[in-house]
């Protein structure tokens, strides 16, 4: 099975006008045509899954994922009930919903599936599915927007979703149902008088759309809090959907973006935007926020003294074996760019045309920190850690040692890998391998062992071609 992927992402507006009365206003009509165009593109991309993150479905107990295979009801909008009713009958991929729920739990994120007759599917989801998937040909999943969730939860929610897409080989389309500026007129208006509520809202919307048109999704994600303050009705639900959508696209800034329409709906900013995963020219990104892999629990915002945010990148000081200076000998190869040994041995040793490396772990030279987090604390209590980050750090350390010796990663011939938890970590380790050493092509043996001397989950023993001596 080929690995699953995101084949496209869309941002769509939430209000029911585009479904019920597009003919009443030229702008609503243009939004409707953009919806139709998006539906055609989704069909042409051979998508087999539509994932809706809806801002009009708030939740409190974690995130909720719709898991009723065929939810049916009649939706009437709380505000725009006079425009009519929208009967719906959707095709939901309940298996995917359950798998996503489990993937969330694995990443420390609370969520639950909902499967109840008569569950009120929210207006944003109903509009998106009605127009993007008019014949229900593509199975869908819908996820709520947790009112208390911040960036870390929302990012991890996306990563867990990607885990399932990849594992199940799906060709998925990610959709956020949302307004840009969401300030509406607070009194009824004639359809012909519709416009963006204020010039300021309009200017912000256009700036956001300029970024999105250039495929700079992560930039919009990083501006999320600012955007919320500037053009959003101040309530608990923040401008979160861009965190989710950027997470669904590996937090990239070099997508290929196209704004299909931008219009007012009762004063709010409604846009249909297509983000194609194909890399485009832009791509520089500031990246000033953590790339969160696991959700480490509530931040207890009301109890400052119990601040418990765990940042997996940072490594607490852990007890462990004493560090040694690498031993030196005529054929030893040692590197300041590699972590200190935990015993009396050199980093590597040259024998003829071959270079034998001592076991290399993920510890960082200098700080001794463990990327992806240690597997246990100083008292031996298990901690959540990221095997991919650890594996990547091992490969980086190997690269440094080989470069110090005058060679490169391309010289690696044979690797013996040690994992402390094969069941948990093999796939993540294997994924990083495939993108790094797998491309070099050494022989490989992977073993499960009980423990390593420091709180790490992976170590590699490497034999490489020795670089030519000058």
């Amino acid at each position: 099975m080929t690995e699953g992927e995101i084949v496209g992402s869309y941002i769509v507006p939430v209000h029911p006008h585009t479904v019920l009365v597009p003919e009443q206003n030229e702008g609503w009509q243009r939004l409707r045509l953009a919806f139709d165009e998006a539906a055609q593109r989704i069909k042409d991309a051979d998508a087999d899954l539509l994932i809706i993150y809806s801002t009009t479905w708030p939740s409190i107990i974690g995130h909720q994922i719709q898991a009723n295979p065929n939810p049916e009801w009649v939706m009437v909008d709380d505000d725009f009930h006079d425009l009519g009713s929208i009967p719906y009958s959707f095709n939901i991929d309940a298996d995917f919903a359950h798998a996503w729920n489990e993937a969330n739990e694995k990443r420390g994120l609370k969520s639950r599936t909902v499967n109840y007759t008569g569950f009120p599917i929210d207006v944003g989801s109903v509009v998106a599915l009605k127009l993007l998937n008019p014949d229900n040909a593509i199975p869908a999943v819908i996820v709520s927007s947790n009112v208390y969730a911040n960036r870390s939860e929302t990012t991890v929610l996306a990563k867990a979703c990607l885990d399932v897409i990849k594992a199940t080989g799906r060709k998925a389309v990610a959709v956020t149902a949302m307004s840009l500026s969401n300030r509406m007129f607070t009194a009824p208006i004639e359809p012909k008088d519709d416009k963006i509520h204020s010039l300021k809202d309009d200017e912000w919307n256009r700036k956001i759309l300029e970024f999105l048109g250039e495929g700079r999704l992560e930039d919009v994600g990083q501006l999320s809090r600012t955007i919320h303050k500037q053009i959003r009705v101040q309530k608990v639900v923040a401008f979160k959907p861009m965190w989710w959508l950027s997470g669904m696209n590996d937090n990239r800034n070099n997508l290929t973006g196209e704004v299909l329409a931008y219009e007012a709906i009762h004063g709010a900013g409604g846009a249909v935007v297509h983000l194609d995963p194909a890399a485009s020219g832009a791509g520089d990104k500031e990246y000033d926020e953590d790339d969160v892999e696991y959700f480490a629990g509530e931040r207890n915002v009301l109890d400052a003294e119990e601040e418990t945010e765990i940042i997996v990148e940072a490594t607490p000081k852990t007890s462990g074996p004493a560090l040694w200076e690498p031993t030196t000998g005529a054929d030893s190869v040692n590197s300041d760019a590699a972590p200190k040994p935990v015993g009396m041995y050199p980093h590597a040793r040259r024998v003829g045309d071959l270079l034998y490396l001592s076991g290399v772990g993920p510890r960082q030279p200098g700080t001794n920190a463990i990327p992806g987090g240690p597997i246990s604390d100083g008292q031996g209590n298990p901690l959540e850690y990221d095997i991919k980050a650890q594996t990547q750090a091992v490969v980086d350390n190997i690269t440094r040692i080989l470069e110090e010796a005058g060679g490169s990663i391309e010289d690696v011939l044979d690797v013996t890998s040690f994992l402390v938890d094969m069941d948990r970590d093999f796939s993540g380790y294997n994924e990083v391998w495939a993108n790094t050493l797998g491309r070099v092509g050494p022989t490989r043996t992977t073993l499960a062992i009980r423990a390593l001397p420091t709180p790490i989950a992976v170590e590699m023993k490497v034999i490489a071609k020795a670089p030519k001596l000058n």
Partner: protein
Amino acid sequence: MCQIAPLFEAWVYGRLNGRNADADIATKHVALSMTQGEIVAGCLAPHPPHLVYAENPPQNEPVAEGGWEQLRWGYERLRESLKDVEYDAIVLLSPHWQTYVGTHFLGLPNFKSLSVDPVFPNLFRYHYDLNIDVDLTSKIHDKAAEAGLAVKMMENPDFRVDYGTITTGHMFNPAWDKPLVVISSNRSRDYYSVEVMQEMMIELGKVTREAILESGKKVVVIASNSLSHRHFTTESAIPEDMSKEHITSHAMHLWDMRMIDYFRTGQAQRILNEMPEFTEQAIAESDGGGLSWLLSTLDVPTYPATLHGYGTIIGTGNAIVEWPERDHKEASQ
């Protein structure tokens, strides 16, 4: 002849609704000579669906092993207090019918459907069948429009009534034998500020009171909201496990007790004065406007209210309070 009849109807309609100056005078005279309407009681009656869930009424699908008894006993005391009091209708404002384009009113005589709570669908899937006092609703609606508030009648028969209205409606009057007036929660607090929200709700309260008094009906008015409103974000395996229930923080508790103290000592004006701080610091569900509207409808009472119960629900603070206006008639003139 065929042209005169519609004109005549329009004229009568205009007079009945006070649409011109002459009619205004006429209606006022009529109001004085008719039986004066009356607010028999005002109530703060919160709507966490957990209360209906814990009670296991036949209308609700999920089954519970009890829970939140302190609050359910509080509702029992409230019902007992009004058992022998006659009234014609219940006027209720719930924060879970959220409208941004003005204030809306349920405008059809009957609504019957299944209400599934989108946040706690595991606890609340309730088959409701409720009647609306469309006549009284129209009176409040029209007066609010005259006062310059943006208002709209909700006349779509497919509309599903929000779970807040259903929960409070059930807990207050499980027989459902009184017609309701159901008012949406205008989200002006989200748009502007607590101050603007409160200004609008005080105005809405004034016209609600006027409409009730002019209607000749006896009415109970209810604000359906919690006090402090910071939830836990996790639910125990057994939602009704009372060993897990407590207020989310000491600060929330202090705010709730302060409000209850004002309720019990007749300091409604002080509540209105402190509403911005309370709503923001206690993340209170008074953000929906219900409490401000209620106190205004009760003409900012100075007599003590009765506290029928207090308890927490997944960390939020909930008080069941009654202002027995029937015992303080001098205040209602």
